[in-house]
Structures are given as C-alpha cells and as structure tokens.
C-alpha cells in the first residue's frame, strides 16, 4: 500500500487517463475538453496524448453531442460525455431521458446504451442561478439511468471505471466544490462498486444521510455533535439510482433518528423520497420525525452571503440534530 495526497480533480483525471490508456474504444466528448484542457482542467494535456478523435471538442450543442455519445455507445465505442454543468444538461434532456434511458426497454432488450455522462453539479462559487443548481435528484427520478455521486477521491477515480464497465447509461455528478479538495488516496484503489452506500463515520445516535458535496459538511457536523455528546453516523449514498434502501433502513434502525442532507431543493427532492421510504419501512424504529436539511427554495443568488445562506451549512445540520434531542 502506498498512500499519496492528491486532489479530487487529479483523481478524476487519473480515472480518465487510465480508461483512455487501457481501452481504445474509450473517447471523451464535450465542450472544451480538448485544446482548452477541460473547463475544470480535468483533461489538460489529453488532446496531445490521444488526438482529436478520442478527445473530441464539441460545439455548444448539448443535445447533439450527448445524442452522438449515445449512438457511439450503441455502435460499439465507450464514450465518456462531459457536460460542463448540470444546468446545461437540461439542453440534452431529450437524449438522456427519451433515448439513453428508454432504448433497452423499448427495443425489448435488443439495444443497450453503455454511455457514461459526467457533469459538474452544485453551488458555492458565486456563479449565480444558471451555473449552480443541484438537479441530480431529477435524473434519479428516471428508470433506466444509473446516477452516481462520487464524494471521495477513491470514488472520483474508481466510479468512472465501474461506469465504463456498466452496460447501461451512467450519469456521474461531480460537485464543483470538491474539485480542489485534497486528501490521501491509496495507489492500489481501482474500480469501486456503484450499488452500495457506505458508512463514512459510524455512530449510534442519529443517521446523517447524504451524498456528494454535502458529505464533508456532514462529517464536520458529526465532529461538532460528538463534542455535544451526540454520536452521529454519516451514510454516503454514493448511488442515487438505484438507492441502497437497505443501507438507509439499516442505519436508521440502529440510530433511531434520521437527518437527510441534500443540496437539492426540498420540494420534490431526493430527500423527500428517502424520507418517504423511511416512513414506509422504518416508521416504528424512529424515535422522532425525520428531518431534512436542503437548499432554500430560490434560484441560487450571486452574492456570497446570500449563496451561503441558501445552501445547507454545517450549523444547519448540527441544529437539525440538536433539535431532535432537545425535544425529548
């Protein structure tokens, strides 16, 4: 075992590089992935290494190049399509929802779509409303898609591998605020499983159920809570579709309390779905009502104090947990 310290961005980059080197069928398609080096510098230098056919700069036409990725996947390539931000993915919704998610079913099992679509999600960089939203919960609504949200370096590097091996369309949501986050990574780590949630911090008193960019806020909140005498468990969902329901239920059965932390808006959110499943399957295991910490129901504002006020913060998570104990 050999541990190094790298950033989330470098982990994404290593995953891509390995995939491109290992499998000739792998190609990267997206706006500015080539000569520019990637909007977030994830694919810097790749164009010179692999050439224009495999690092394919696409014009600003999300529906066109996402659809081309779908066709290329059906045709036998292993395309990785990069969409600059989740907001732009809305321009490609037709291809993602009407084609990628449905072709296997409509064709009676004849045509599967092994495409991988990566995109940045989340707020925190003062990019205002059209570059800051967290819409992964919407995509998790769609049967036929697999939705993953790598939060750790291992997942950032390894989920791409698993996604490329998957015969179905996989959407990877990478939180913009994680890109510069540095941590230790084991050199030996490879493909990771896409199906199972992971307990990032075990605890007895309350389950913090979260994913992606909110994971580290939950871990920090758990530290604060520990000093208050509350031992919080942090469950990283990792996959939003399929949801690892048994891991969620098992954690809440142990702790008796659930706080769901989701950067999406509360109304119609993934947090709402998880809450409903807890009502259906773990109602009698709950010591108190489920709580949700979500983004304020407004388009994300530009000024930093308002943006931060809109997003779930460590204090909000701590407060939601304390309230559960305070009431009793």
């Amino acid at each position: 075992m050999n541990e190094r310290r790298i950033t989330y961005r470098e982990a994404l980059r290593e995953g891509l590089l390995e995939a491109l080197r290992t499998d000739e069928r792998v190609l990267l398609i997206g706006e500015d992935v080539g000569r520019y080096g990637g909007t977030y510098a994830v694919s810097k230098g790749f164009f010179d290494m692999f050439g224009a056919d495999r690092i394919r700069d696409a014009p600003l036409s999300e529906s066109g190049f996402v659809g081309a990725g779908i066709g290329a996947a059906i045709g036998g390539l292993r395309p990785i399509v990069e969409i600059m931000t989740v907001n732009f993915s809305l321009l490609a919704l037709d291809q993602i929802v009407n084609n990628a998610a449905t072709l296997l079913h409509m064709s009676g099992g004849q045509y599967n779509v092994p495409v991988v679509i990566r995109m940045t999600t989340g707020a925190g960089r003062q990019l205002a409303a059209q570059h800051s939203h967290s819409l992964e919960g919407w995509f998790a609504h769609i049967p036929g898609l697999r939705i993953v949200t790598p939060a750790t370096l291992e997942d950032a590097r390894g989920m791409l591998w698993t996604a490329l091996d998957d015969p179905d369309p996989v959407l990877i949501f990478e939180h913009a605020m994680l890109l510069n986050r540095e941590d230790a990574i084991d050199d030996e780590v490879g493909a990771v499983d896409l199906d199972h949630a992971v307990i990032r911090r075990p605890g007895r008193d309350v389950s913090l159920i979260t994913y992606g960019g909110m994971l580290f806020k939950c871990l920090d909140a758990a530290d604060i809570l520990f000093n208050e005498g509350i031992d919080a468990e942090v469950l990283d969902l990792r996959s939003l579709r399929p949801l690892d329901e048994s891991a969620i239920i098992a954690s809440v059965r142990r702790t008796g309390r659930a706080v769901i932390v989701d950067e999406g808006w509360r109304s119609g959110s993934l947090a709402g779905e998880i809450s409903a499943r807890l009502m259906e399957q773990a109602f009698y295991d709950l010591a108190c009502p489920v709580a949700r910490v979500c983004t304020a129901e407004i388009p994300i504002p530009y000024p930093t104090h308002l943006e931060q006020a809109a997003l779930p913060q460590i204090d909000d998570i701590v407060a939601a947990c304390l309230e559960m104990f305070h009431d009793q």
Partner: protein
Amino acid sequence: MSEKIHLDHDHAHHLMKAMLRIRRFEEKCAELYSGGKIRGFLHLYIGEEAVAVGVMEAIGPQDTVVATYREHGQALARGVPMTAVMAEMYGKVEGCCRGRGGSMHIFDRERQFLGGNAIVAGGLPVAVGLAMAHKQLGRNAIAVCFFGDGAVAEGEFHESMNLASLWDLPVLFVCENNLYAMGSAIERVQAEPELHKKAAGYAMVAERVDGMDVIAVEAAARRAAETVRTSGKPYFLECRTYRFRAHSMFDPELYREKAEVEVHRQRDPLTVFPAFMKECHLANDDDIARFEDEVARELDEAVAFAEAGHWEPIADLARDLYRRETL
C-alpha cells in the same frame, strides 16, 4: 454497390412488390385499428412507400438505419419480417420488441434497424454517433437516418447537421418531406421550405428528389450512399413525398382539402410505377395480380402469427430496464 440501377424485369418486380407489401400491410393495420386489435398511435406511411423502398435498395446489411415513428414501411423495406412487425403492433411478446414498443418503436438488431424514434429529430444525434462508431472502429458502414420535414424545425436537426459535417461522419440523412408536420403545412412553419437548402448551409452535399418515384429515389440514394461511403462525409437527400392518409388515426384532417389530397394521388407510386412497368413491358396485369396474391398470403400469415401470439407475463414487467442486475 453500383450507383446505376439496372432496371431489369426482376428488379422492377422486386420494387413493386416491396411497395405493395407496405401498402397492404398498412391498409390492414388501419382495419385492425378500427377493430381494436391495434391500439395507441398509428401513423400510416401510405403514399410514401417509394422513399423507404428506394433508399433501402441503395444500402447494405452492414449499414445502420435510424427511423421515425412512421416506420412500418422503413422496417418492412429493411427486411424486418412482417410477422414480427405485426405481432409488435398487437403488443404480443412475439413482436420484434417483445411488444414493448408498439407501432412507433420498431427495432431489429439483427437487421441494424434502430427504428421508431417518436421524438421528432431525436434520432438524428444518435445516427451521428453511430456513424462516429463506424468510422472510429474502421467499419465500412454508414448510418442512414430517416426523419420528416417536421424534424427540420428542431434544434437537434441543426446540431446534428453541424456535427456530422464538422466531424466528417458517414451519415446519409433522408428527409421525408411529406409537406406536413402533423397538421402544419410546411409553408406555415418553415421560413425556408426548400429543406435541402438548410442542409447545404452546413457544408454538405444536399439534393432534392421526387419521393413519389421509386426509381428516382433509388438512383439518388445509390449515388448518395456511395458518396458517403467513399468520402466519409454526410449527404442530405430531401425526398418530396405526400401522405394520403391523416397524420394518425386520431387526426380528423381539418387542415387540408380533400381536393389537395386527390391531386397528389395522381402521383401515387402504387399506380404510377405499375403503369410505367406495363408501358415498358416489364410487367403485365398477371404479374401485378400475382404480387397481390403473394402479399395477401404473407399478410394473412402475419395476422395469424400476431393473433396466435402471447401477452408477456406481468411478472416480466421490469424486464429490460437495465442490462446489469440492480439492487
């Protein structure tokens, strides 16, 4: 494959029969629809047969075909068995998509037929990607993409034209211009109704052909497919055609006069082509009668096959959602 058509006796008969199979199949479908055997949306191709038949003659089995929601004709011309198409219309498990798609979603992997995109223009980017795969994997195959005039107004049309041309991809775009996007006449919804001119703006060869003339379509499609294959670049073929029936079985057809339809009926490929064959002594009335008999027999078999088919068990409801097993 030669660009020139050798219009001998056999080939003429083949074209005639291919168009007749589509026509009679669809007339039967309309009847079965009225009888409640076929449900959902049913978009008939009647009047447009020369386009699918002419184009399919020009391409090979290795080429991939992306089709529209008005695709029974495209599927039959491509060689998807009539039995499997009819069973699909019924929704039976013996259908080409296990009954999961119905009329608008006919797929046949063995025949490289990715038909049935019911989102207008939704198939165009997919065809671009298929062509990318053909090129990058070194296959001598092209992608053939059918779409209607309605699709030309969608952004995906323009994005796909640009990508295919920019990336030099082997796509044959076949625009079936039947002059109506559902109920909207082309002059009412297109600033430039000469659709091939739009494609030409994306720096690709674009031409217009009489889509009611099967020989003209085949000749143009051969030339186009050969150009795509040798140049590796896209090509746009606008086939001017006309549908004699309503947009779908639900359409009361209030947007056009019966007289207009009658004018176009004078150009019916199923009337014009037999007359041409007789004039050139390529076929006689007995030949035509024989084709009718053969098609009628095939159609009876297809209906019997669909009738005898089975409903997929409800236990299989979640089948074919993911290829990989999930939690």
